[in-house]
């Protein structure tokens, strides 16, 4: 279409305005804001700024790409020209260069997508078989004696495990079954090592693991043969593969999954400090139980001593003596009581005698009459007229003669 030059005042944009307009259109498209692109890396450039620049190409097109320094730090794959990759990011415009490009925030080697598909397929298959069921998980021994380890003899993972066990619980014995943890032969050898440990060593627990790496590096632990060997292990298995964020099928089949090899060693044994604490509490418990046992016996003993005492001759004698004391006390009391009674009677009798005392009668004004011979004259029949009688009063006596006798 030919432009119409006759227009007097056409709408004319500056380059900056137009570029901003194009950028706004690209950035507002949802598909372009979240896109995966596959291609081959070329023109790779890593200036000192830390950002990474390259071009993704396929047979008939190319796309400029940028990875900012912050994202570049988290890349696991080492990039190089000619590498087939899948990049994820956002399409936007580099305005100064007048170029649209992919701002990459994630990147993986091509084929990892396929590996992941394979991972999901195998996981579903084994899951359906029940290999990952919770009911299959066996409890770990509280304090294992022998720990089997399946990892590389030269890897950092094995040293991490040994260092952790040495600090945490050096009581245990470690038996390593050395294996390559990546490469073609790894799965068969890892599976065989798990079987061999169970067969030859019969450990209380097995740690299987390796240090961190790319998805491909960890791939042996997603191998069906390894997963089946772990599930079939007689000894419970703790897996510690890669880093916190890595999950392998071995992790699902293991009785316990640890985030790292070090973590697996921590989960395998109790802390020696806790064992010491436990011993101290047992020691206290033992003392208390023994003491209460002895106290019980002491009480029984004193009970029995009492019973024995009551059966002994000495006890009988003491009993007899006490009874004697008792009786003599009662006797003494009885005698005293009797004496008192007698005395009271005597006083009473004395009182009555006193009443009968003639002197007392005389004191009251009565007189006692006797004849010349001194015999008491108690009747008029005992006297004759003219007879001399003696009259006794309280303070003396006089003689008188009988003048008249009346009746």
């Amino acid at each position: 279409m030919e432009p119409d030059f006759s227009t007097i005042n056409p709408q004319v944009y500056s380059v900056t305005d137009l570029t901003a307009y194009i950028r706004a259109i690209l950035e507002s498209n949802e598909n372009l804001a979240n896109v995966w692109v596959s291609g081959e890396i070329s023109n790779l450039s890593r200036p000192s700024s830390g950002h990474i620049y390259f071009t993704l190409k396929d047979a008939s097109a190319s796309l400029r790409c940028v990875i900012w320094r912050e994202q570049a730090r988290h890349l696991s794959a080492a990039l190089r020209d000619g590498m087939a990759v899948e990049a994820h990011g956002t399409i936007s415009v580099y305005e100064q260069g007048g170029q649209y490009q992919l701002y990459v925030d994630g990147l993986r080697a091509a084929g990892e997508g396929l590996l992941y598909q394979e991972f999901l397929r195998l996981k579903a298959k084994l899951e359906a078989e029940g290999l990952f069921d919770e009911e299959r998980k066996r409890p770990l021994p509280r304090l294992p004696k022998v720990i089997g380890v399946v990892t590389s003899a030269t890897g950092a993972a094995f040293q991490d495990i040994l260092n952790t066990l040495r600090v945490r619980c050096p009581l245990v014995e470690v038996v390593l079954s050395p294996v390559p943890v990546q490469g073609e032969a790894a799965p068969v050898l890892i599976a065989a090592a798990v079987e061999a440990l169970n067969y030859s060593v019969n450990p209380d627990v097995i740690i299987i693991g390796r240090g961190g790496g790319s998805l491909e590096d960890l791939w042996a632990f997603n191998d069906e043969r390894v997963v089946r060997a772990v599930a079939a292990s007689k000894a419970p298995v703790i897996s510690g593969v890669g880093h916190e964020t890595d999950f392998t099928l071995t992790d699902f089949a293991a009785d316990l999954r640890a985030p790292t090899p070090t973590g697996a060693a921590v989960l395998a044994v109790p802390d020696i400090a806790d064992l010491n604490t436990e011993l101290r509490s047992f020691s206290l418990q033992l003392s208390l139980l023994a003491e209460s046992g002895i106290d019980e016996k002491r009480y029984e003993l004193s009970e029995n001593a009492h019973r024995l005492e009551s059966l002994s001759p000495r006890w009988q004698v003491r009993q007899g003596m006490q009874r004697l004391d008792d009786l003599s006390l009662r006797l003494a009391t009885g005698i005293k009581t009797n004496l008192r009674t007698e005395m009271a009677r005597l006083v009473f009798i004395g009182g009555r005698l006193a009443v009968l005392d003639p002197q007392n009668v005389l004191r009251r004004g009565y007189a006692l009459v006797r004849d010349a011979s001194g015999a008491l004259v108690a009747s008029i029949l005992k006297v004759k007229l003219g007879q001399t009688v003696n009259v006794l009063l309280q303070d003396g006596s006089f003689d008188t003669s009988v003048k008249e006798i009346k009746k």
Partner: protein
Amino acid sequence: MPKSPASVQDLSYEQALAELEALLSTLEGESRDLEGTMAMFERGKALIARCQELLEKADLKVKQLTADGEIIDLEEQD
């Protein structure tokens, strides 16, 4: 308690601990003569001392299972 208890020096940590736990629950349970209580107390003390000794002396043993099924000491590279 076993009829003729093994010398504590021959017991592993797990064995000593297992016997100690059994002994404590027996001691908790039934009552027995004084001699029996004292004997169990002495045995318990010996078991605890054995466990403490093993914890103090513990030194991680590292071995390797060879391809032909032998267990050999492993030379460690530091």
